[in-house]
């Protein structure tokens, strides 16, 4: 008995150590970036624990590029995509889940194509389309290819399908229209999915780089990721401290949001029961 317990204990200790080593390894880049950003450039390659702490890198980084505008652009972009996707994907998912019409399954299969083929892959063609629409270098242009998401439709369809028909029937008896049923029954019951999906969406689009790179030209439309890439590509050589400061500034909001909401984040995934 005690032998088994000891074995259990030993393996638990090994496990704990392994888990912690992995965790430390995973955090290393971020910790390193923080270290570099809060110390002057001279300490970039040295780990002097007594090195003076400074906020100058952040100040210089902030002043070197219009990060405030980039922040605004990114927030507008992400909010816009979030709202549009919620509406569009909810409507479509509802139709796929609860309506029977000719060609429904084929249409759904076609929708799923976008799961594998992200708009990024079709860079050139999408660029030409946007150009034809005269929308190059606008915020909507960044958002357009992503407004309808196969992933969102798929998730919501699954969620809606799992909701018992009784709820809908009850609402219908009370005289609800189709859209009313959607709004009163399905959407509220799908809350955890919306939350989980929304968080994934925000994270994805906050960090999206390639498509915004080619479709934006000016400060008024550029999101943070592109702004950071341009900022870091200096002909005169890299100043690591400033780049680390800029990097932290651009990832900061998401990181803080995650810190605050991590419980909800994980919970919503569990409740969403993504299988």
């Amino acid at each position, binding site marked *: 008995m005690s032998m088994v317990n000891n074995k259990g204990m030993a393996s638990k200790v090994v496990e704990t150590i392994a888990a912690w080593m992995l*965790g430390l390894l995973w955090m290393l880049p971020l910790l390193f970036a923080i270290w570099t950003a809060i110390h002057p450039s001279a300490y970039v390659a040295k780990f002097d624990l007594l090195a003076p702490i400074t906020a100058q890198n952040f100040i210089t980084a902030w002043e070197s590029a219009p990060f405030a505008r980039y922040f605004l652009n990114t927030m507008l972009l992400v909010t816009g995509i979030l709202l549009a996707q919620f509406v569009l994907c909810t409507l479509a998912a509802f139709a796929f889940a609860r309506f029977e019409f000719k060609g429904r399954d084929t249409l759904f299969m076609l929708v799923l194509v976008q799961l594998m083929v992200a708009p990024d892959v079709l860079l050139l063609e999408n660029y030409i389309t946007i150009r034809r629409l005269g929308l190059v270098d606008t915020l909507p242009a960044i958002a357009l290819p992503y407004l309808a998401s196969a992933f969102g439709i798929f998730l919501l369809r699954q969620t809606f399908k799992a909701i018992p028909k009784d709820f809908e029937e009850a609402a219908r008896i009370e005289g609800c229209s189709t859209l009313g049923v959607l709004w009163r029954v399905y959407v509220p019951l799908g809350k955890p999915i919306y939350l989980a999906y929304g968080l994934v969406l925000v994270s994805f689009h906050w960090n999206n780089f390639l498509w915004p790179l080619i479709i934006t030209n000016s400060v008024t439309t550029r999101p943070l990721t592109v702004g950071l890439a341009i900022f870091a590509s200096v002909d005169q050589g890299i100043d690591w401290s400033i780049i680390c400061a800029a990097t932290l500034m651009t990832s900061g909001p998401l990181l803080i949001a995650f810190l605050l909401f991590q419980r909800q984040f994980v919970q919503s995934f569990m409740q969403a029961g993504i299988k």
Partner: protein
Amino acid sequence: MTGTRNTVHAWLLVLPACVLLAAFTHIPIIATFIHSFYSSPKPRRPSRFVGFDNYEAMLADPIFWKSLWNNLLYAGVSVPVSIALALAMALFVNGKLRGQGVLRLAYFTPTVLPMIAVANIWLFFYNPQYGLVDQLLKPFGVIGVNWLGSQGTALWCLIVVGIWKEAGFFMIFYLAALQQISTELRECAAIEGATRWTFFWRVSFPLLMPTTLFVMINAVINAFRLVDHIFVMTGGGPDNATSVLLYQIYVVGFKFFDQAYAATLTIVLLLILGVIAIGQFLLADKRVHYQ
């Protein structure tokens, strides 16, 4: 619900999403296919039909083959490793270990950071003279290796960054799924004398198959889609050692302005994604039951 009124309703509901999907996914796919059979439009020479010329040029292009091989290698290594790590992380965080919450945070952090941002940090890490990797490996006798500047190591360095970025994201899915495995099952197994390891292999792992499939689809898509770190860290070099298909499409399309060749490369990428999709679909059909 049936009836013409409902059919009209249904189509109205799906219309906005379908129009956008058609405009930015389906039509571009067809357009790409068509463009791959024409030459690139130039100011003094408009686009003309060239049949399979572009494909022949592509098959003769060593950079294409290198990019293809790099992409397959990148996907082939980063997908299984990040999934395995994600599973391990989920198990770590799920089993009542000390500091669980902090660990979960540590594993997930890379996911919320923009790849373009972390790539700069990793660039610093890999610096051959005072980068962290060099400093950590010095005691083991590995000194002054030019990680990103050598053909043999550059791609592997990027694979490491890719795995680091993605594993935490997949962990969340596994975590959710693990918590659904009822504790009763576990207690039963414990009473029957099964070790945690046996329990894992015989019970948990099979039950996690749907999640694994879901995660695998995501991982593969991302392996072909995420090229941000290439921009910052190697620019496709040295000598195309880190060039992958999507990056090559960007270079050909937006630096050389060679629309035809970019379309041709895109077709190859689409074919690969298509084959993988079909493969995973068949796998799903065989192994997993959905509602």
